[in-house]
């Protein structure tokens, strides 16, 4: 089956084309095509996953090689030796991503049926969703970095279009541009990194790069540079510190989009990239340390930011950044921990976003200060949202607990300063997570409704997908139970990239860490409940009354202002751009103009001075001297012929002298 896995991205590609070109004429505006293709793709993904996972389990059992299938063709040559290939790489990681992407995408498609109903550009929306899914799947399936880069950029542009979906409002298009440019800035690193890896290994092919690393024949300095450059791309795409600022703004897009792109899939592309190249990264400790530190900073910083948000989607956005920080940090020392958290988080964060969408749909506002008491009117939304929240809070035995616990265990095992940093910050971050989710739960669902109108439960299409997502949110953590007996049949075995790695990096359980984490989480909950039991909003909100810390957090550490105002606006658009134009018009052009004008002026001058005054004057002089000697002379201004004659003879005399001497 894995031979035809290219069908998985091909299906949404076909549906994207079908929707964009023919969607308007379809009864459901093209949505049915998208849902159908995604459903088939999901089935295919399940089939592929079963094949790959079972093969890997078998490999663990008999010590064989991890499952890997690559199918590729050369797209075009770029020199006599090298070429650009298109190929698919099917292994545990891509099978896992298939499952996640197709499932969440399918859910979001269905959910959007209700959420986007009546929307003017309904068809366009579904076309973009399919296009995005295709791009994401290309990124996942790519067997070489160039193709991965293609998918990477394509998801970026889809994200741009979806964030700016309601482009009538300037703020939305601003957010879209910000998202695209920020991630694109990170892509400088990605491009340079990919090129550097090509330079080191002479290929884009991931298998060959890994083989090259294993063979040990590489320029270590260059490789380190390349990998760190790649991290810059990851920082942009996965919204890591300090390029995370675009993600909260990206919430301007429709909420299902946030669920799909800015929670479950696209933002995990960076994490995926590191996981994809994990064997390469593990050969370069410096790069791994960089990853871990960036992830650790991000997880704490973003968690704090979530504390002061009023917009429910922004809370979730910062929470996403924070969780992405966990994943990235985890990949600093453990492959399995990182991608396991990616996997579980995808489900429950998508669930939370869909739930938030449902809430916003009902309350007609994004702000929690306009909500409250929604548990009574929309129970189904409440229970699914609650499940998602508990999973995010890492309440055992829900999904989030197992994956986050794994990260902390691995961090402790890794030790050294990076491991300890991640361990400490991760544990604190866990408490913060619980606190802000408690705040959200109380502000949204408890108490009385503070907004306008009469909120009501969302339609079936919008409640069914959360239910479907709630199931994995509850149980998916169990697939990687850290029991030695279970491990050969668990997630870690399914998705391993090599048997050797699986053997040498067993998944373990630490009761102490689990206890500390749960205790911290409980503390967070208690504090949160104490503060927000009465759903204080606005000025009453204790988190907004902390003075300077609140201010700093509300100003997002002033990073945004730095980027937007200082760099983008002041520096680039107004100053540098203007300076360039100035340079262009005033200096370079002026030089040319002056050269031209100079020639003309020189001509005029020569004409006025040399021809009319100089030659004429010379002529005058010659003429005058002859006239003097004749005794009847005056300064004659007119009298041209004789002056001509005089000039001519003067020329003759001068030349004759030259001749005679020469």
């Amino acid at each position: 089956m894995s031979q035809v896995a290219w069908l998985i991205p091909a299906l949404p590609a076909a549906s994207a084309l079908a929707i964009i070109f023919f969607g308007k004429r379809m009864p459901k505006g093209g949505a049915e095509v998208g849902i159908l293709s995604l459903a088939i793709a999901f089935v295919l993904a399940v089939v592929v996953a079963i094949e790959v996972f079972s093969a890997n389990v078998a490999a663990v059992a008999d010590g064989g090689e991890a499952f890997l299938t690559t199918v590729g063709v050369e797209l075009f040559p770029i020199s006599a030796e090298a070429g650009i290939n298109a190929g698919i790489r099917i292994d545990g990681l891509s099978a896992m991503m298939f499952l996640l992407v197709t499932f969440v995408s399918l859910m979001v498609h269905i959910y959007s049926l209700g959420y986007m109903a009546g929307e003017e550009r309904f068809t366009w929306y579904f076309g973009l969703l399919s296009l995005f899914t295709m791009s994401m799947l290309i990124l996942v399936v790519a067997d070489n970095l160039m193709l991965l880069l293609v998918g990477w950029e394509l998801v970026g542009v889809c994200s741009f279009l979806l964030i700016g979906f309601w482009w009538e409002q300037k703020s939305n298009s601003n957010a879209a541009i910000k998202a695209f440019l920020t991630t694109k800035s990170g892509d400088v690193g990605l491009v340079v990194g990919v090129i550097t890896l090509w330079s080191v290994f002479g290929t884009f092919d991931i298998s060959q790069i890994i083989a090259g690393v294993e063979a040990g024949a590489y320029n270590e300095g260059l490789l380190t540079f390349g990998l760190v450059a790649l991290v810059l791309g990851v920082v942009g795409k996965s919204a890591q510190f300090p390029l995370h600022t675009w993600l909260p703004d990206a919430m301007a897009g429709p909420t299902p989009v946030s669920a799909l792109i800015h929670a479950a899939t696209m933002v995990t592309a960076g994490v995926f990239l590191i996981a994809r190249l994990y064997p390469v990264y593990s050969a370069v400790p410096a790069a791994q340390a960089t990853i871990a530190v960036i992830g650790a900073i991000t997880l704490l910083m973003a968690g704090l930011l979530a504390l002061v948000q009023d917009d429910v989607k922004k809370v979730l956005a910062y929470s996403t950044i924070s969780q992405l920080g966990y994943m990235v940090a985890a990949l600093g020392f453990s492959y399995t921990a990182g991608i396991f958290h990616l996997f579980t988080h995808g489900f429950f964060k998508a669930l939370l976003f869909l739930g938030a969408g449902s809430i916003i749909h009902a309350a007609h506002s994004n702000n929690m200060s306009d909500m409250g008491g929604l548990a009574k009117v929309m129970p189904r939304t409440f229970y699914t949202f609650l499940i998602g929240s508990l999973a995010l809070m890492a309440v055992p035995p829900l999904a989030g607990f197992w994956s986050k616990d794994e990260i902390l265990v691995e961090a402790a095992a890794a030790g050294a300063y990076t491991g300890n940093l991640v361990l400490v910050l991760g544990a604190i971050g866990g408490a913060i997570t619980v606190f802000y989710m408690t705040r959200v739960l109380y502000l949204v669902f408890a108490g009385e409704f503070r907004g306008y109108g009469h909120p009501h439960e969302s339609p079936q299409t919008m409640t069914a997908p959360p239910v479907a997502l709630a199931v994995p949110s509850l149980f998916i953590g169990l697939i990687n139970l850290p029991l030695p007996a279970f491990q050969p049949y668990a997630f870690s075995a399914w998705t391993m990239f090599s048997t050797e790695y699986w053997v040498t990096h067993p998944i373990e359980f630490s009761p102490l860490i689990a206890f500390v984490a749960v205790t911290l989480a409980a503390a967070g909950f208690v504090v949160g409940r104490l503060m927000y039991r009465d759903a204080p909003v606005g000025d009453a909100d204790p988190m907004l009354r902390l003075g300077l810390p609140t201010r700093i957090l509300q100003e997002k550490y002033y990073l945004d202002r730095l980027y937007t105002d200082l760099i983008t606006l002041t520096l680039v658009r107004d100053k540098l751009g203007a300076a360039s134009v100035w340079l262009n018009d005033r200096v370079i052009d002026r030089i040319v103009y002056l050269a031209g004008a100079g020639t003309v002026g020189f001509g005029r001058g020569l004409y006025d001075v040399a021809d009319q005054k100089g030659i004429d004057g010379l002529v005058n002089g010659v003429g005058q001297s002859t006239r003097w000697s004749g005794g009847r002379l005056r300064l004659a201004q007119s009298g041209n012929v004789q002056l001509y004659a005089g000039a001519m003879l003067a020329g003759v005399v001068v030349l004759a002298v030259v001749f005679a001497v020469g």
Partner: protein
Amino acid sequence: MTWEELAITVTVFLPLLGAAIITFVPRRHEESAKSIALIVSLAAFVLSLAILAGYDWGARGIQFQLNVSWIEAAGINYHVGIDGISLPLFVLSYLLTFLCAVYSYHHIEEPGRPKAFLALMLMLQTGMAGCFIAFDLILFFVFWELVLVPMYFMIGIWGGPNRQYAAVKFFLYTLFGSVFMLVAFLALYFAAPERTFDILALQQMGAAGEFTANFQRLAFAAIFLGFAIKVPMWPFHTWLPDAHTEAPTVGSVLLAGILLKMGTYGFIRIALPILPDAAVEYAPIIGVLAVIAIIYGALCCLAQTDLKRLIAFSSVGHMGFVMLGIATLTPIGINAAIFGMVAHGVITGMLFFLAGSIKERYHTREIAEIGGGMVKTMPKMGVVLGLTAVASLGLPGLAGFWGEILALLAAFNPAPSLVDAGYLTLFRVLVVFGAVGTVLTAGYFLYMMQRVLMGEPPERWSEAGLRDISPIEWGAWMPLIVLTVLLGPAAFLVTGMTTPDVTTIMTTFLGG
């Protein structure tokens, strides 16, 4: 004379013949000039496709060759032929001219007069195509200059309010460069052990090291000036924004689509292979200038308020990537450059078509006047503009991407001779700046899209009943739109053709 020998001559001079025929159209039937131009350009395009079909892709060296003596006393030959490097540009020039002929059914700028306009356009076609098939320096020069006059008139008569200034600037700038180029050609002629203007013969002498280092330096400088002005490379670019802004739509399309490529093509065909040692010396300078152009062009774009001028400045940046590819002196770089040229021709040609149609409808090029919301007032036009803009900013999967990324890739790994000369670090730094340039490029295009496409349209436009893309426009644009999308995944259409000959031409540099 077989078809093989005559194919190029017939294809190149057919448009000139068409131009001559058009001049004999009586003024009363001036409109029929359009059909003649359409038929002639279509016929020429079909002929160029026939050459494409008859071209042996795998082979190296020139095909469809014809070499007859022309001016014997000076050793000038009528030597024409085609190889993988020129073929894509050759065919592209015919395609664009044909599309321009189609487009002129839709709109010709004031003062109309299709007869003169189309005759000039066809003349231009002969000059452009001729440049790509000439294998004799003087023949090349003649075609090169032949382009100048029709374009001068196109800008000067059918251009915008500031047309005369732009036309003269264009003319004199280019003439200035080309005079130096001619001097260099003559110098090559005299310096060659066996006096000849034949490009292939001179290439062999160049590879054999027949020219002294000092001579190469001087000759390259002169040739560089001629080509760099045409490209245009920073800081010789200032004619371009004016010329583009003022030129009529068809003029802009051909100017951006083909004329600029004549310069870069000249580098690949003439400057590098004939003067390889000087090329190694100049490559870092070219690389630096190219990257300056990338960044600088993008920054200038950010400051533009005029849609057409913005697109014009974007050409500076895009050609910067092309020149960066050339400066690497590697087959990948040259391939990237040629791909970049074709892609830029397709995409920017399309952008200028759009700018022209927008100007025609809004009667302004000022972005602020247009005021946004084009997707609402003219949804199809808006979507096409959006697609073309993202293609231009180098989105993977569309035509603009490969040229940029491969140029960067090549610049990271420049030719061994450059590495030996100690320029590796310089080029790698250039890569980083070039990559930053892609971000800036994305920035100004998105900024443009935001201001033109998005937002609520001003009332006067939403009520003006602006006509969306007309059938003629679809006819003129569809091939370009298809190519914009197709060249992304099907890049082998270009590189498959170019790779063998690029490898041949670069062998001098490959050895170190």
